Structures are given as structure tokens and as C-alpha cells.
């Protein structure tokens, strides 16, 4: 974009357009002929990765919006129906939900790269500030997107975050009412968040255009922080940067696909599989991992208004970075002190993120305060001071000189540190899903675990029998219809068998011509009827505790994994906290109550239930359900079968997910390899 392009298309039709709208010249000068510094490393591919992620989020988001219903009573169900009934809906939803996390992961790497190499310094201040604006828009978009599934964490996250504005003196309360469109978070809030969540990504795309424009005016910074002087210092964007970016994107997609196909719920919160309930606060409200450092800053300050100001200040301060750091040398490569402080700052941010997921008590509060001070000290004390006292090492005269002097650098070790730290950070979220005050459920061997896991058909069929004969007298299964029983990846019944199964049920229908409701035999398209007409009836019939619907129970329950398990889980693809918990609770009833535990009247002691006092009496006993296939009729076997069945009801397309995941991985590895060798060939003459 430096000066008018002299590009002329050879095709006469394109020439005709070009004379009237020089769009091909613009594209050519921006993405083909554009000179890019020769010494860029792989950290610079994150710009392309971010563009890719933005496109991905917009495309998947637009399709999801075609199936989503923004209404407080229907939103949760509509998301579940997307996952269950829409063609590849589970894929779209996983891509969009994990995509948000990957988008933030990439943006943090991109920002830290800018920080390390001084990419915010003159003449790139506006470029940097535009980046901070994009980041702010991303945070708003991400927050509102997380509200849309209307689960417990959606609802309470929205409550906590909108209440931040009530800290503003005088106008606070009216601003919050304006945000809600009511007297509390409710249907109007959901509607406006949906509208804004659809709008903001296009604003982001607009600011990205400005960001890229500013980039192409000032030119890219580079690891040595010296401006290109001669033609020898640069290479044309295409093919050099294009192919390198494609390799970077392919590698990034491998990580992305790992989440989509194998760990879709690793970054989410189990509580968000419970529909929003304004009357019950989850025991521990945690935002998504990418907000945790700022959440920790908010909580570490005892005054409400000051906490909110500090939280927003922690982001706004980035805008002033170009003037806080007045050092002439750009790259920390040549700034021995700045380099050390940079890594300390990265560790501070990660630790803040870890603390953001911990309960605000005891040592965590003290540590949070110390780290909050460190965070601000980096910008307000360390950087201004360093620019005065630090003696930078001599900077090379030109980029080509820097390349000649370059030895093998420890980029790999830095990458390892960053990945390990990132895993710690991401995993800290797992810590937050605590079910406090209970024993850890024992890990089981599940047929559906691991990258090639499949449901055991026999267990699914036996589990269905246990559900029908035992569980269904109190627990509903309202997201499952009889036709699902005949679908691939399920219990393996034929369509006729599913129809016969359905006809055993009585389903309420109507009104008929006379205006009356009537009962008829079930059809395959009907859903499992719930045992109680509404939650209040369920509550009243069960001593005040409504038996939860079991459709999603294995995804809506979890337990604390703790350090270092959550890191190991990422690599072993351990996703079975929910099934382990459900199976443990079914077997955790004990007649003998240990000393020091008091169980209220009407409750029962359960070893694994949080708080130990459960309202459900021991549901299973040996020999209660007969099995036709000779499997042992023990409580352990019942628990295993019904849990397997409930894992299928929570995720009926799991087998398809893992199968497609394997195919995608084979493709991506081949594609990345191809890109790598092409890149080597293209760059052969330039290193």
C-alpha cells in the first residue's frame, strides 16, 4: 500500500474493471508485491492465524445463528438441538466455541510478540492502539457469545459482568437497567446480547482492515527492530510470507482440531450444561479462561469501584504503552534487562490467570494483590525506568547483516516454556470446577474414552433398560426422542424396534377438534415423557430437591482434578470426569454414616456427593433389573451400563466426532508437511 500500484492485469476484462476500480492493484500491492522483512520468525504468522480465526468465527457463527433461538425459555434447548439434530451441528458448535478460545490464545501470543519486539514504538503507535481496540471488541463479543447458550454460567457470568457497571457512581444503577432492559438479567438481555454478538464481529473485521492498512503504511516490524533499508532486506509477500503463514495456520489448526474433535468441553465449564436458573447461584462463578487475569485483578482490590477501575485500567493502559516505554531500541533481543522483565511479566499474567480461577480466600487473595501490583508496576515503573537506565546492546545496521550474524537461537525452548505455561493457564479452569467436600470418584475404564472410543452397544441397551425400569420414575430424559435409539452411533436398534419401543409410552397430544387434550401411543419422533409435569411438581414430590433431567447429566457434572492432572488430561484426552462422577454417586451410598458427618432428616449419606447429604435414596440394588444377555446383575454393572447410556444421551454424535477427528488429523498433518517443504523450497534462496 505504499504509493499507487503499477500492477496491470493481463486479462482484458480485469483491465476494464481495474481502470474503474483499482482493486486488483490494491490486492497486488498489499498481498503479493508487498515487501516483507526477510528476518521474520514464526511469531509473525499469528497475524494470518488471527485473520483465519476471525473468518472461521464469522462463518460458523452465521450458520449457527440460522438455527439458534434467542429466547430465555428456548435458547438452551435450541443449542442442544443444534448439536443433536442439525447436520454437522455438533461440529459447527464445537468449532465456534473452541474457536473463541483459540482466537484469544492467538491474540495473546500476537500481543506478547508485539510487546517483546517493541512493535508498538514509533511509527507504529496507531497500529498498536487499533490492535487494543480490536482486543476490547473481542472481549465484549466473547462475553456476549458465552451468554447465548443460556446455561448457569452464561446467566451468572452475565449477572456478574453487567453488575460491574453498577460500581459507577450516580449513574451505575440506571446504566445496568439499560443494559438489562429489565430489572434483572432476563429475556430482553439475551435478545440484545444476541443482536450485539452478531454485530460486533463485523466491527472487528472493519477495525482489522484499518489495522492492516496501518501496518502496510508503517511496514512490518521485525525481530531485530531495524527498518528495512535496501531491497536485500525484504522479500515479496507472495510467495514467501504467504506460504509461511499457511504453514503456521496449518500447525495452529492441528491444535484447534485437537480441541474440536477430542476435547470440546475441556475449556468450558460443566455448569453451563445446566439450564439458567435465576434462583440458584453456582457455588463458584468463573469466567472463561481468557478473562481470568483481569478477573483476578478485579477481585484482589477490596473496594468495588476501585476494583472495576483497576480491571478496565489493566487493558486501557496498553494504549499508552508507546509512550510509557521510551527506549530507542525496539527489540528486546538487544535489551538485556527488558528481556528478563518481559518474561517475568508473562509469568505474572499466567499466575494471575491461575488465581482468577481460585476461590477468593486466604493466600489466594494476598497473592492476587501482590501480582496485581506487579502487573501495573511493569507498565508504570519498570518500562519507563528501563528506558532511562538500560544500556542496550548494539543493534545491527541492517536486516541482512542481522541474518548473517544469526546463530541457532533458543526459539524452540521458548516455545516449550510458552506451551507449558499455556497449559497451566488453560488448565487452571479445571481447578475451579470443584465439587468441594467429597471424595474423588475413582477413574473407570470406559469403552468410549480415548481418540478411538466407541460406545459398547450392549451397555447402551442394558443402560436404557436400567433407565426405563429404575431412573425414569423420577428423572426425565427430555432431549432424547425415540427415533434417536435407531440412529447410528447409538444403542443400535432398528427403526422398527425404536417405533415399537415408542408405542409402549403414552404421550399427551392435542388439542383435538373438540379442543381437548388426549393421550395416544408414542411415535418415533416423540421425546421421552418426563415423570413430572413441571419442576415445582418434581420438587414437591421429592422432599424439596427436584431430580435433574438426565439427558446432559454426564456433561453437567464434574469434579476437581487439581494440579498437575489437568495438564496431563490435555495430552491423554481424559474427558470422563462426568461419567466417573455419575457412576461413583450411584455406588457411593453407605448405610453407616462416618463420625462427624450429620445427615439431615430425609437425606441419605453418599460418599461422592458434594456435601455427602443426597435426597435420592439408594436407587440400585443387586438383581433389581434382569439382563437377557447374561451380564452380571450387580450394582456395579448397572452403574456402568446406565452411565454409558447417559454418556450417549449427553453426546449422541460422539462416535462421529472422533471418527471425523481422525480423518481431519491425517489430512492436516499431510497438509502441514506439504506446506513445510514448500516453504523450505521457496525460502531456499532467501536465508
Amino acid at each position, binding site marked *: 500500500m505504499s504509493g499507487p500500484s503499477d500492477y496491470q492485469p493481463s486479462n482484458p476484462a480485469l483491465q476494464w474493471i481495474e481502470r474503474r476500480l483499482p482493486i486488483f492493484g490494491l490486492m497486488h500491492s498489499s498481498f503479493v508485491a508487498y515487501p516483507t522483512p526477510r528476518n521474520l520468525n514464526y511469531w509473525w504468522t499469528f497475524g494470518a492465524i488471527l485473520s483465519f480465526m476471525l473468518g472461521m468465527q464469522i462463518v460458523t457463527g452465521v450458520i449457527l445463528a440460522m438455527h439458534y433461538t434467542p429466547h430465555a425459555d428456548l435458547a438452551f434447548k435450541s443449542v442442544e438441538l443444534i448439536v443433536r439434530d442439525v447436520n454437522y451441528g455438533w461440529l459447527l458448535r464445537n468449532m465456534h466455541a473452541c474457536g473463541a478460545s483459540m482466537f484469544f490464545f492467538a491474540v495473546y501470543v500476537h500481543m506478547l510478540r508485539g510487546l517483546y519486539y517493541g512493535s508498538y514504538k514509533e511509527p507504529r503507535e496507531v497500529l498498536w492502539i487499533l490492535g487494543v481496540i480490536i482486543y476490547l471488541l473481542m472481549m465484549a463479543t466473547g462475553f456476549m457469545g458465552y451468554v447465548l447458550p443460556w446455561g448457569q454460567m452464561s446467566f451468572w457470568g452475565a449477572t*456478574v459482568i453487567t453488575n460491574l457497571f*453498577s460500581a459507577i457512581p450516580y449513574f451505575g444503577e440506571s446504566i445496568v437497567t439499560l443494559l*438489562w432492559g429489565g*430489572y*434483572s438479567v432476563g429475556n430482553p438481555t439475551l435478545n440484545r446480547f444476541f443482536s450485539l454478538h452478531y454485530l460486533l464481529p463485523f466491527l472487528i473485521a472493519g477495525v482489522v482492515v484499518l489495522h492492516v492498512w496501518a501496518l502496510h503504511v508503517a511496514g512490518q516490524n521485525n525481530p531485530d527492530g531495524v527498518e528495512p533499508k535496501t531491497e536485500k532486506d525484504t522479500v515479496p509477500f507472495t510467495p514467501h510470507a504467504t506460504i509461511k503463514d499457511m504453514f503456521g495456520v496449518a500447525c495452529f489448526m492441528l491444535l484447534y482440531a485437537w480441541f474440536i474433535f477430542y476435547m470440546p468441553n475441556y475449556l468450558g465449564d460443566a455448569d453451563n450444561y445446566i439450564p439458567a436458573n435465576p434462583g440458584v447461584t453456582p457455588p463458584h462463578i468463573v469466567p472463561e479462561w481468557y478473562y481470568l487475569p483481569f478477573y483476578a485483578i478485579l*477481585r484482589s482490590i477490596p473496594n468495588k469501584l476501585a476494583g472495576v477501575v483497576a480491571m478496565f485500567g489493566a487493558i486501557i493502559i496498553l494504549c499508552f504503552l508507546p509512550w510509557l516505554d521510551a527506549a530507542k531500541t525496539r527489540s528486546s533481543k538487544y535489551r538485556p534487562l527488558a528481556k528478563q522483565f518481559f518474561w517475568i511479566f508473562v509469568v505474572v499474567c499466567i499466575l494471575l490467570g491461575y488465581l482468577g480461577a481460585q476461590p*477468593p*480466600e486466604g493466600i489466594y487473595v494476598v497473592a492476587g494483590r501482590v501480582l496485581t501490583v506487579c502487573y501495573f508496576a511493569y507498565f508504570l515503573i519498570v518500562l519507563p525506568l528501563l528506558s532511562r537506565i538500560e544500556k542496550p546492546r548494539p543493534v545491527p545496521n541492517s536486516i541482512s547483516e542481522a541474518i548473517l550474524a544469526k546463530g541457532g537461537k533458543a526459539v524452540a525452548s521458548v516455545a516449550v516454556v510458552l506451551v507449558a505455561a499455556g497449559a497451566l493457564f488453560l488448565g487452571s479452569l479445571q481447578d475451579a470446577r470443584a465439587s468441594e467436600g467429597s471424595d474423588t470418584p475413582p477413574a473407570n475404564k470406559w469403552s468410549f474414552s480415548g481418540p478411538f472410543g466407541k460406545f459398547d452397544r450392549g451397555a447402551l441397551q442394558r443402560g436404557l433398560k436400567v433407565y426405563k425400569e429404575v431412573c425414569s420414575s423420577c428423572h426425565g430424559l427430555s432431549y432424547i426422542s425415540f427415533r434417536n435409539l435407531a440412529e447410528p452411533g447409538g444403542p443400535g436398534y432398528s427403526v422398527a424396534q425404536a417405533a415399537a419401543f415408542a408405542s409402549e409410552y403414552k404421550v399427551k397430544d392435542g388439542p383435538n377438534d373438540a379442543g381437548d387434550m388426549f393421550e395416544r401411543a408414542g411415535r418415533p419422533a416423540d421425546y421421552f415423557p418426563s415423570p413430572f409435569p413441571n419442576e415445582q411438581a418434581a420438587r414437591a414430590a421429592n422432599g424439596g430437591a427436584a431430580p435433574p433431567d438426565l439427558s446432559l447429566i454426564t456433561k453437567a457434572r464434574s469434579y476437581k482434578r487439581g494440579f498437575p492432572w489437568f495438564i496431563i488430561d490435555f495430552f491423554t484426552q481424559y474427558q470422563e470426569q462426568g461419567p466417573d462422577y455419575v457412576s461413583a454417586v450411584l455406588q457411593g451410598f453407605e448405610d453407616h454414616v462416618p463420625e462427624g458427618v450429620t445427615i439431615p432428616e430425609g437425606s441419605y449419606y453418599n460418599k461422592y456427593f458434594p456435601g455427602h447429604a443426597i435426597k435420592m435414596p439408594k436407587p440400585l440394588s443387586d438383581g433389581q433389573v434382569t439382563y437377557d444377555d447374561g451380564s452380571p446383575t450387580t450394582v456395579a454393572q448397572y452403574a456402568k451400563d446406565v452411565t454409558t447410556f447417559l454418556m450417549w444421551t449427553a453426546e449422541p454424535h460422539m462416535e462421529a466426532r472422533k471418527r471425523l477427528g481422525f480423518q481431519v488429523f491425517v489430512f492436516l498433518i499431510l497438509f502441514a508437511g506439504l506446506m513445510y517443504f514448500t516453504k523450505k523450497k521457496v525460502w531456499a534462496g532467501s536465508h
Partner: protein
Amino acid sequence: MNPDASTIAAGAPIEVDLSPVAEGQDIKVFWRGKPIYISHRTKKQIDEARAVNVASLPDPQTDEARVKSGHEQWLVVIGICTHLGCIPIAHEGNYDGFFCPCHGSQYDSSGRIRQGPAPANLPVPPYTFVSDTKIQIG
């Protein structure tokens, strides 16, 4: 973007019958989408709330100012933590009052903040006694 007419209309005052609430019990009703705790306080709870040195509280307010005279046993508060809007749990915490599970704020038997990050007492909604056993909220 302010509340529309139907939302405002749905926020009209409601009447609550107190006769089924036994001493030491509390009920939760929803008004304008907000949970309202109505506690039938025991003698002990009232005495505890009145024994406190008001000046020592983070948000000084006497118990007398937070209940209607002649109906001291009834405490009516909006059950929304003044910190960040979670719903505190009744009959928990160290002060015989409310405990917020989100960030650990503790309120006493008069709904006043005693410990934790919340800046203010649980607000008392506008209400009047229609009769001895019935209140109107709003």
C-alpha cells in the same frame, strides 16, 4: 433500550401471605426477576442484630431502620449480593444471616454486610404491611 412497557407492567407490586412462614423459617419470592428473602426471625436473631455496635459496621444502619416497627420479627431484603449480584444463601455464615457463595460476603440477621468484598447492606425493597400476616412488595 430501557425496559419496555410489558416488563414495567410485570414489575407491579405483589402481595405475599406470611401466615405459613414459621419462626426461624424464610421464604424466597420473586419480584421484578429479583429474589426477595422474607425471614421470620427468632428472638435470638433479633437480639443479635440489635446488640451490634452500629458505628463499627461497614455500612452503618440500625436494625430498627431495616424492619417495620411492630413487625420486628420480619426481615424483608432483596437477596442479591451488593458485590456482584449473586444470590446469598440464607442461614449460613458466621452471623446467623446470609452467606454469598461467589466471593464470600457475609451478612448478619439484619441483612447487613459484616465481612467480605460487598460494599453495602442487602437492600430493603419498598413494602408495607397490608395486615398482620400479609405484605405488599413494591
